[in-house]
């Protein structure tokens, strides 16, 4: 099976090459037989990549340590679940995983478009085949997971302990699903540019894929934050690490696209912009992988430097040049007869929303690259850490939050004064009340204050929109409001799913603002010692050490401290934090010690304990962090994912959904008055 897998990779590369060649040729020559052959070649590529993946999984599960990858990332005593997830624990395996997802996505795209978008499909298939060729060639020639060692070690090195975590088992696949998901819209964009069919057809084909990519990217990012929080032990969930930033970049651009696509659908505007966003999301996904693999920028996530980085750099440059050429030579075809009736309109709000989202993406990219720019210009190495990113991005984030509240309140085409008054009155009043309440409660941090006020504005906007929609159904159909609520969402999933996403964003922002009340304490405790500290809410917490214990379990040696915790004299139970030294099957240490954080969480705050060091037999150095509102980050992330699912969920009545999807606001005769409707 392993040999079959190895050979399958090469066959897959040949198949993809054939697929790319005949797909483009079929499209150019308008030969249906060639197009069909190309599509079949891509289905065959999928079969070959699946075989290769099964080959690698077989090697991992049978502990075939003659294979370098297996020996490098697993050991005989590694729990089975992590032996399976070790597939994407190292570079070559994760590249194969990427190719696997891409070939699955490609097959789904070909299958779902077998009777649709036929003019575009040869070029879509050809573009996807080219991307597959790149990944398969990189795997076969640059980083082959089936590479064999000259000898067979008795045991493998094992998987990095920090990757032995449920979050890490599912976080990378989600990110990959998101990253790779941007390939499909990119392929459609290239196809549309090549064929000059730049109307709404290609956009309709890619919206759901862009949403899918956004959904998985969101889930991947939030899971990554959770993993960093519970596993790395530094006390937070986002460190502005270059690789974290790299995952944020396509997410931001994709989010901008999901907003601007509505403007093109409704008004036929922003054609160039939408193509640019789709292409940028894909290129930024590749850029993220380039950062991870090349070692150009220092990151806790970086694998060792490898020649694969250069492959990605070359692919990135070629992709940029090709797409820049295609866009620049088709500017005429991308021209739209945009007309704007008012600066105060949903279209204008969406444009500013896009500006902020792309502005944040730029600032994150700029901050990530600034160390090498500075070194190139001045020869000085500098560090661009959280203080820089917070300084730059907090104001931009607050602006975005404000626009999230304002945008849905403004009507398409033109908002009258009466409409604005009616729409804004309640949300603004709620925001002002929230601000005053926060001040009264002692929130004096400006960013936190604005965050809560703007968050209240967004929530009020959402509630108002739901209230109006439910009332409309109640009046139209006589439905009870309880029945009207789910039906309202079901009838317009895009709009109300989007509001659920907005709600998730508010919750996440509220949790971020809670960081203003974070407190950290560095304590040294011997067995029986206790220390008292006070959190941001004024509660007195006592930490009493029960001493250090040392024991062996599974594939690790554990040093643990147990702390009796009381809050204002009332017992809060025991918190345990560990340091783990992982060992191979012969008991030899495999990695540096890793941290197992002790967390006692509530919706108000987490008490986060890290065993930082041991002194003598029972002395311990611990860090206690009071992290406010952390659970709200996970809750907000879940809400965003649920909202994304609602938006993506296929409509039961396909025809109606299609009609709704195609709805475009027709130009109205000059002078005709339109009531102030707020529509999605």
């Amino acid at each position, binding site marked *: 099976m392993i040999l079959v897998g190895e050979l399958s990779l090469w066959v897959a590369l040949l198949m993809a090459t054939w697929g790319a060649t005949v797909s483009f040729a079929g499209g150019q020559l308008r030969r249906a037989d060639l197009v069909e052959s190309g599509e079949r070649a891509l289905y065959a590529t999928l079969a070959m990549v699946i075989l290769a993946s099964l080959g690698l999984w077989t090697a991992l599960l049978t502990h075939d340590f003659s294979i370098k990858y297996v020996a490098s990332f697993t050991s005989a005593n590694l729990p089975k679940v992590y032996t399976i997830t070790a597939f994407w624990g190292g570079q070559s395996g994760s590249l194969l995983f990427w190719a696997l997802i891409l070939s699955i996505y490609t097959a789904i795209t070909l299958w779902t478009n077998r009777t649709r978008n036929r003019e575009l499909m040869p070029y879509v298939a050809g573009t996807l085949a080219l991307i597959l060729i790149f990944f398969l060639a990189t795997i076969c020639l640059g980083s082959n997971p089936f590479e064999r060692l000259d000898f067979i070690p008795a045991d493998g090195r094992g998987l990095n302990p920090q990757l032995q975590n449920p979050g890490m088992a599912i976080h990378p696949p989600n990110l990959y699903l998101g990253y790779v998901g941007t390939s499909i819209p990119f392929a459609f964009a290239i196809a549309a540019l090549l064929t000059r069919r730049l109307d709404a057809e290609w956009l309709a084909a890619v919206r759901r894929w862009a949403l899918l990519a956004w959904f998985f990217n969101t889930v991947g990012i939030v899971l990554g934050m959770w993993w960093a929080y519970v596993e790395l032990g530094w*006390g937070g969930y986002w460190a502005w690490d270059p690789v974290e930033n790299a995952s944020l970049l396509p997410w931001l651009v994709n989010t901008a696209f999901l907003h601007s696509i509505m403007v093109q659908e409704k008004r036929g505007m922003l054609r160039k912009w939408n193509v640019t966003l789709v292409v940028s999301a894909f290129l930024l996904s590749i850029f993220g992988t380039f950062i991870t693999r090349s070692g150009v920028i220092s990151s*806790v996530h970086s694998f060792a430097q490898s020649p694969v980085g250069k492959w990605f750099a070359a692919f990135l440059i070629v992709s940029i040049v090709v797409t820049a050429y295609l866009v620049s030579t088709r500017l005429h075809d991308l021209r739209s007869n945009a007309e704007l009736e008012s600066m105060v309109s949903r279209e204008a709000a969406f*444009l500013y929303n896009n500006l902020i989202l792309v502005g944040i993406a730029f600032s994150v990219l700029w901050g990530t690259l*600034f160390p090498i720019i500075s070194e190139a210009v001045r020869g000085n*190495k500098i560090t661009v850490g959280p203080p820089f990113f917070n300084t730059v991005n907090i104001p931009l984030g607050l602006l975005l939050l404000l626009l999230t509240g304002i945008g849905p309140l403004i009507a398409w085409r033109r908002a009258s004064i009466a409409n604005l008054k009616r729409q804004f009155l309640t949300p603004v009043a709620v925001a002002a009340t929230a601000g005053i309440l926060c001040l009264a409660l002692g929130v004096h941090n400006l960013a936190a204050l604005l965050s809560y006020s703007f968050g209240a504005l967004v929530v009020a906007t959402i509630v108002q929109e739901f209230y109006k929609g439910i009332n409309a159904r109640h009046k139209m159909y006589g439905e009870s409001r309880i029945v009207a609520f789910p039906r309202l969402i079901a009838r317009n999933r895009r709009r109300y799913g989007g509001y659920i996403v907005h709600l998730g964003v508010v919750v996440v922002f509220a949790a971020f603002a809670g960081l203003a009340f974070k407190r950290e304490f560095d304590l040294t405790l011997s067995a029986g010692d206790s220390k008292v500290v006070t959190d941001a809410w004024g509660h007195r917490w006592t930490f009493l050490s029960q001493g250090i214990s040392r024991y062996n379990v599974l594939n690790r040696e554990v040093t643990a401290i147990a702390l009796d915790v009381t809050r204002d004299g009332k017992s809060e139970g025991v918190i345990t934090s560990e340091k783990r030294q992982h060992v191979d099957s012969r008991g030899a240490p495999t990695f540096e010690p890793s941290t197992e954080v002790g967390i006692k969480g509530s919706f108000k705050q987490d008490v986060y304990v890290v065993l930082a060091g041991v002194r003598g037999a029972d002395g311990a150095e611990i860090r206690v962090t009071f992290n406010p509102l952390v659970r709200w980050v996970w809750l907000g992330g879940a809400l965003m994912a649920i909202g994304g699912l609602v938006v993506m969920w296929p409509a039961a009545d396909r025809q109606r959904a299609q009609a709704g999807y195609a709805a475009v606001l027709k130009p109205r005769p000059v002078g005709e008055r339109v009531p102030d409707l707020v529509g999605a």
Partner: protein
Amino acid sequence: MKRREFLLAVPALGLGAAMFPRRLAGAQAVQTFNGPMADANEVYRPVTLAAKPGAQASMSDAQRDDLEHKLHCQCGCNLDVYTCRTTDFACSVSPAMHADVMGLVSGGYGAEEILAAFKSVYGEKVLMAPGKSGFNLVGYTMPFVALAVGAAMVTALLKRWKSRAPVAVTTPSSYTDASEGELAALDAAVRRDG
């Protein structure tokens, strides 16, 4: 843009890229999940100053911890000194840097003086964020400049689009606003029809 124009532009960009300093190509040290790559012997450099006359501790422990949040641990972990020394069992660099900070604090030196002392020994990379002066200002201001330019472009674009729109005729005074109920009904009807 014509094909020929594009083809001419690409070599020009390539030439520009080739003239960009070669330092860019040099990869920085890489941190892996295996813990810090460097130990104290390799990267730690003492930062010591003679104590000020009659020196007393210049700050509280909490203030010192805040100060250590501004210093970048040199073990390669991307964390600040405080977080690294209270997180990473294996790091020998952050405890050494912490000891230097404590020495300077007890020697009567203030936060800015301590940061300057570290900067003079390790260079600017020891700060978690670059100082807001000189070329670094480009780093801090560029996102806002880009946003301002973008906002100006968007506004200009919107104005151009607006100028293309037909001029609306003044609403006859006999019109009255639709009631909430009428609007809700119309809203629902529009949604139903997509």
